[in-house]
């Protein structure tokens, strides 16, 4: 056992606790600056540590509860980057002015929970990670206590989330019942040895796990909380949920479905494929009619979860590789879109409405370009990152004899042009400009916007090395078990 592999997780969770403590310092200036600074330093350190360990042999720690393979390290880096971006977006956020400690601390703990999901070696750690980030998010959603919509979002998320978690933990318990083990890597053999592959018990477990994880990933019909919660939560937290939660949910999907339960591929392939198809269609159609950016992005996030599920349904190395690559692209483009919303929201009343973006491309070309890149990439417009990702996802589906699913995905992305392009059109329209107040956008938000937009281009431009990374991570997983 090698405890040093735990460092990324330990640094981030430790920093989370530290940030909570720093937030109650009596000196106002220190209480305001230090938690965020601590968080950023810790997350950078976590990225460096994952980078250092990359290329080494796969390790397990804490009695195979914690896996440190390339998959974990890749996702740790993505999650840490998301954490940094969210901390920067939340800089000077009104709600965080007097609650800086809670804000930064909970974001860090949440990132730590997501990292734990990615590294989970047993179902217990998996669930622990999911609960750690979920509970932190329940609080973060409700942090703007003076705003009823924020409280409502937090409460709703808590209640519905509890149902979702309940179903998930029930499924995991049934899985334990069927296999007699919580260790993910032993499940395959346990199922075969116990002659349980055709038994109803693991099927029931699979059903509940699909639903539980589908809830976290906002798959239809478990998505109904998404628009309300996204809408009500403070926008940086919405950005965090849209990116981080999605990454963590798919990390869990991959750990469970593409690795330890791959033996039951024939059983879960079609249900997951159907879930993906329904999610793509409903998500895209519902997004068409949303007047608010946050609600529109919520439904678009639902649809994007559908595309990602297509990669899971393929059940192949290519599928997992595509999912990982698409998560990279998705993170960049979603973060860019939310950065613009964050900025606009602070400048004007009702800044989260699509109408508030009118003419932003003319008054501030840079923000217009950021928004345009994000929307075109989300819509899968070639040659941006979203296009390559979708191409890989749908291609993996065709390879896995799920051509119909690839067609559904392609048709879905056609529908999605309807609402993404509307935003682009509004942004470049001339017309009465929605006037800026004297508020000056903090540089941190601009940085996140520009860096994310640059990432959209770079992820596309350097598709080759990145795909190699994703492929390494995916092969390490599926390589452990031969179907």
């Amino acid at each position, binding site marked *: 056992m090698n405890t040093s592999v735990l460092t990324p997780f330990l640094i981030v969770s430790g920093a989370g606790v530290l940030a909570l403590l720093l937030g109650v310092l009596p000196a106002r200036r220190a209480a305001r600056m230090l938690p965020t600074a601590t968080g950023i330093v810790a997350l950078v350190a976590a990225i460096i540590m994952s980078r250092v360990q990359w290329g080494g042999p796969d390790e397990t720690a804490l009695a195979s509860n914690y896996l440190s393979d390339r998959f974990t390290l890749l996702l740790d880096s993505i999650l840490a980057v998301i954490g940094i971006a969210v901390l920067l977006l939340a800089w000077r956020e009104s709600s965080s002015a007097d609650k800086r400690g809670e804000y930064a601390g909970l974001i860090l703990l949440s990132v730590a929970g997501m990292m734990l999901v990615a590294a989970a070696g047993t179902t217990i750690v998996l669930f622990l990670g999911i609960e750690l980030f979920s509970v932190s998010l329940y609080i973060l959603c409700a942090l703007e206590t003076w705003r*009823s919509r924020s409280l*409502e979002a937090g*409460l*709703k998320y808590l*209640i*519905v989330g509890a*149902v979702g978690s309940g*179903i998930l933990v029930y499924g995991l318990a049934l899985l334990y019942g069927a296999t007699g083990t919580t260790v993910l890597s032993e499940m395959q053999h346990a199922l075969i040895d116990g002659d349980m592959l055709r038994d*109803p018990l693991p*099927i*029931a477990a*699979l*059903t509940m796990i*699909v*639903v539980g994880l*589908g809830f976290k990933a906002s798959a*239809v*019909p*478990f998505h*109904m909380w998404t628009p*309300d919660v996204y809408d009500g939560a403070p926008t940086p937290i919405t950005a965090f949920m849209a990116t981080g939660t999605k990454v963590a949910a798919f990390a869990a999907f991959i750990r469970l479905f593409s690795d330890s339960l791959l033996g039951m591929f024939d*059983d879960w*392939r*079609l*249900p997951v494929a159907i*879930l993906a198809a329904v999610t793509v269609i*409903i998500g895209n*159609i*519902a997004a*068409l*009619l*949303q*007047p608010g950016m946050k*609600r529109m992005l919520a439904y678009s996030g639902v649809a994007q979860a559908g595309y990602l599920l297509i990669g899971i349904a393929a059940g192949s190395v*290519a599928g997992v*590789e595509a999912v990982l690559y698409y998560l990279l692209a998705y993170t960049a483009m979603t973060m860019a879109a939310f950065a613009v919303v964050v900025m606009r929201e602070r400048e004007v009343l009702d800044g989260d409405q699509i109408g508030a973006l009118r003419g932003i491309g*003319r*008054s501030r*070309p840079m923000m217009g370009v950021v928004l345009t890149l994000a929307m075109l990439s989300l819509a899968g*417009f*070639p*040659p941006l990152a979203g296009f*390559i990702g979708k*191409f890989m996802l*749908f*291609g993996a589906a*065709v*390879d896995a004899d799920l*051509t119909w699913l*690839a*067609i559904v995905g*392609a*048709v879905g992305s*056609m529908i999605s*042009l309807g609402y993404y392009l509307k935003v682009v*059109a509004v942004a470049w329209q001339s017309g009465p400009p929605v006037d800026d107040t004297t508020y000056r956008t903090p540089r941190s938000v601009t940085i996140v916007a520009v860096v994310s937009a640059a990432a959209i281009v770079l992820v596309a431009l350097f*598709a*080759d090395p990145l*795909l190699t990374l994703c*492929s390494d991570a995916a092969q390490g997983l599926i390589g452990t078990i031969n179907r």
Partner: protein
Amino acid sequence: MIGTLGWIVLGLPLLGALVLMAFGAKEPPKRVTQLVGCGSIGLAFLATVVAFFSMLSEHAEERTHVSRLWEWIDIGQGLKVDLAIRIDQLSIMMMLVITGVGFLIHLYSTEYMAHEDGYRRFFAEMNFFVFSMLLLVEAANFVFLIVGWALVGLASYLLIGFYYDRPVAVAAAKKAFVINVLGDIGMVIACFLLVRELGTLDYDQVFALAPQFIPAGGGVALSIALLLFVGAMAKSAQAPLHTWLPDAMEGPTPVSALIHAATMVTAGVYLVVRTHVLFELSPLAMNIVAGVGAFTLLMAATIAIAQVDIKRVLAWSTVSQIGYMIMATGLGAYASGMFHFLTHAFFKALLFLTAGIIIHALHGEQSLDKMGALRKPLRFAYFAFATGCLAIAGVPGFSGFFSKDEIISMAAAQGTYGWVLFGVSTLGAFLTAFYMFRLLLRVFHGTEPEGGYHGEFHMSGAAMTVPVAILTVLSIIGGWIQVPFGWKKVTDWLEPVVGGIPQKVNADGTLTAVGHVAAEPSHNLEVITISASLAVALLGILLAWYIFANGPERRLRISARHPHLRSFLEDAWRFDEVYDETVVLAGRASGDGLRDHVEPKVVIGAGRGVQELFSDMARFMHQIQSGLVRTYAVALMAGLAAVAVIFILVSR
């Protein structure tokens, strides 16, 4: 060297577009815009000409140049995508037209667009279009083909919607985009199938491997060909995906000339010719392609008769002429299709630009009912337009005669099915001559419209007339490069790219041909078909002369006798209405349904005034909140039940 030139040709318009975009909200002086906008295309044309001549000095078999800039994607299973261009006989032909005709139209636009807002934006978007179109034809693999394919769609969308304050233009832009994306999807799925079957998207490899690994005449070959053809149909406005092109005339006239007549809409023809190996693997697909082309050419020709908007007549004529090209490619007569592409680019650009002069002169008037007897005041336009009409109608000596008659002759030589297509295309030739001369006579001959003309004619300057004059000359002489019973320069030039039959290597090393080469018409047959199409063209012109030459009395009498036929043609066979009833309404209904039932809160919010909303908020919040969470939980459980049912069904 030629590879480098290819990159330069590609880079110049992109540079032009970027420079013009960089000005942002500040409008630069007009001269700067003109210099950058036209200069980039002019230099690109020069570079293309240099590349063309250095290619001429090469041996015919060594004229393919593939230049790789860098490796873009390389994943384990062998799929490799390079950022690479391919300059060969086919792409250089397209490049010459795109940059050459493109330059003339840019030049023309410097004056035509002078009074419009957004001068810089117009040239930036036009340069961007030229870049995208060049990327489409220079791409060396399917991925960059799709990139170019999507980018020309975007450029077309932007330019149709150039007058974004006109709702009609915005609606037309949207329609064009949606139909084109439908085509993109077909192409993307075709590419997935290619990756699955062959593991590569590189042209060279695909065309070499396809005959070996894709069974000829099988379902896979048919699917790939038809999916690619869906892309071609959408881009080239072939029935039933043609409805966007007439609406696209809402864009400025130079846009109609460049994008929606000369270049972009012929991308489908280019696609079929470029991927002809894949089409030949499926004879059924080839026949479908030819059939779609024939149906489109006839349908569009009938519709063109009844239109009263000068640009819409030309738009339907474009649909019809591309139908000829598509039909030719479906018959395997690729060189004939490309030859018609070339002459069509000349005379259709000429017709559109001249129509622009007329519209310009009449201060924006486009309706034929408000025109007539313009022969004297617009003498130059009259000669130019008449040349275009003679060319498209297929009068001997003018360019359209050579290219169209070649297609008709080729059709007649292809057996029974060929004779059917021959009949259709000959009828089409009759209609073409008829509707084009109807247009010419109603604009320039006959009597002045009721009430006469108001005010001065707005005469065009040199920047508009010189390009038109050059295109007039090209429309006359452009056809002489390929003459029946004489020489076949286009066919010989394209021979290494499209000639020959794809061959499959058998296990014992022998070769089996898959697909077939289009049979050449015999001399006698060619004499017969040329006489026939010549006769119908003259008949069409004479009939048009009889009805339209002397004022509106005759035509009004005739059209009053057939009101239903007339309105049916005027409404373009009512394709739009059918689509509205089926696709659009259904889509809208499902969207509305979702909103009404899934999003009651939003409806409540939108349906009431803001004030009322605030006062109701507190009262509603209580009810909605608890209600919704319960609803969500119920949905979760119902979803769980549904997933369980699926799992049970699958595991049985």
